[in-house]
């Protein structure tokens, strides 16, 4: 067992974990953060995407011990003060999900994408989501949702609301 201390969705947590435990398993099984899901075993599908120190990672491809000291944000931690994250809002508005299993990872990766490039083109959105698989939507409305969120965010920023 190895002692780890990290911040998950804003809360400090301390645990003893087996070194082999994957970050996603730690989130789900020990912290009950079941919003983050496991879709594959080869880091292909991106369903488990979370933010680790501000960058998107596939949490099935990171050991919990590697996240020691880090700040982790999951789909359960991106809404603020009861208000949805603009991407959560956009995914619903644009019908960017059907079964919803890929959605947490898709939203977390989209958030990373917009953080690096607030005004992406369609091609940039598609490339930015190349590591996330969805079997339901054909991606069309996901791409639309990311643009919608980008537009909504820039409208807010341009309006000086922030």
């Amino acid at each position, binding site marked *: 067992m190895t002692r780890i201390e990290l911040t998950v969705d804003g809360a400090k947590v301390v645990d003893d974990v087996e070194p082999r435990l994957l970050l996603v398993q730690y989130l789900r099984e020990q912290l009950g953060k079941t919003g983050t899901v496991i879709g594959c075993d080869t880091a292909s599908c991106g369903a488990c995407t979370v933010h680790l120190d501000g960058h998107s990672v596939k949490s099935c491809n990171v050991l919990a*011990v590697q996240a020691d000291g880090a700040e982790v944000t999951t789909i359960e931690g991106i809404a603020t003060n009861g208000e949805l994250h603009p991407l959560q809002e956009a995914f619903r508005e644009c019908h960017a999900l059907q079964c919803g299993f890929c959605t947490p990872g898709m939203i977390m990766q989209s958030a990373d994408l917009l953080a690096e490039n607030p005004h992406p083109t369609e091609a940039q959105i598609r490339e930015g989501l190349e590591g996330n698989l969805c079997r339901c939507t054909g991606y069309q409305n996901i791409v639309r949702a990311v643009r919608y969120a980008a537009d909504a965010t820039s409208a807010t920023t341009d309006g000086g609301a922030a």
Partner: protein
Amino acid sequence: MIPAPFEYARPTSVDEALGLLAGSDDAKVLAGGQSLLSVLRMRLNAPELVVDIGRIDALRGIREVAGGGGAIEIGAMTPYHEILASDEIRTGLRLLHDAVAEVGDPQVRHRGTLGGSLAHADPAGDCGAVALALGAEMVIAGPGGERVVPADEFFQDLFTTAVGEDELLVAVRFPGYPGWGSRYEKFVRTAQDWPIIAVGACVRMADGKTISEARIGLTNMGPTPLRARAVEEALVGMTPTAEAVGAACAAVADGTSPPSDLNGDADYRRHLATVLARRAVLAAAGAA
């Protein structure tokens, strides 16, 4: 699926890491983990000890080599996304930048590292051919201190490099290529898939008209990354027309032994190499 149990150590210095490696006969070095963890999860390996070198600060960073004539040293544990964000690399080592941009997907590029990828030595990895083409030097630390191995001697076989079991790749040095043009041509079936093959080309033009020097690396055309030296030589002095470059590149697959798999057989790969090499060289020459 969870990996089989292992002991875990997280050294904070290269010496500490080397000590751990020396003390175990079944240790595996964990760099960014983007290839290793899948293998451990599938239980195709179950080492006794995993040495996580992710917290050795000395292994991270991009710096100019003092007195190196524009040479750049990249710490082995520098993640891809930091390489991509570096202006120095984008302007000075464009080929590396472009190849790194093609690795995996954004999440993988946040965790994956240059050194981890080179030490893993997957023939389909994007960085090997580029390191070879750019004449990189690998800095390897071991019980006897550091040694420097040129890329030509680094890749020894499938998944096998000059890094011994008790050694660590600590940095990669790239000579500067001011004024060269480059292009990394990667051919995939789906965006995040491994390349069927890829060709990295780097070209220097004399007076903007003829090729004065060329360096070409091949990805997944054999058990190791390869350099297409005969084509490089044939290109020298050539005016880069499609016909001339195409004729020179027709021999690019000579002497290679590409794999056959579900994505295509060896003959198809040999053919693809000629097409991609032509395109890469023409683009590199145009951009020079």
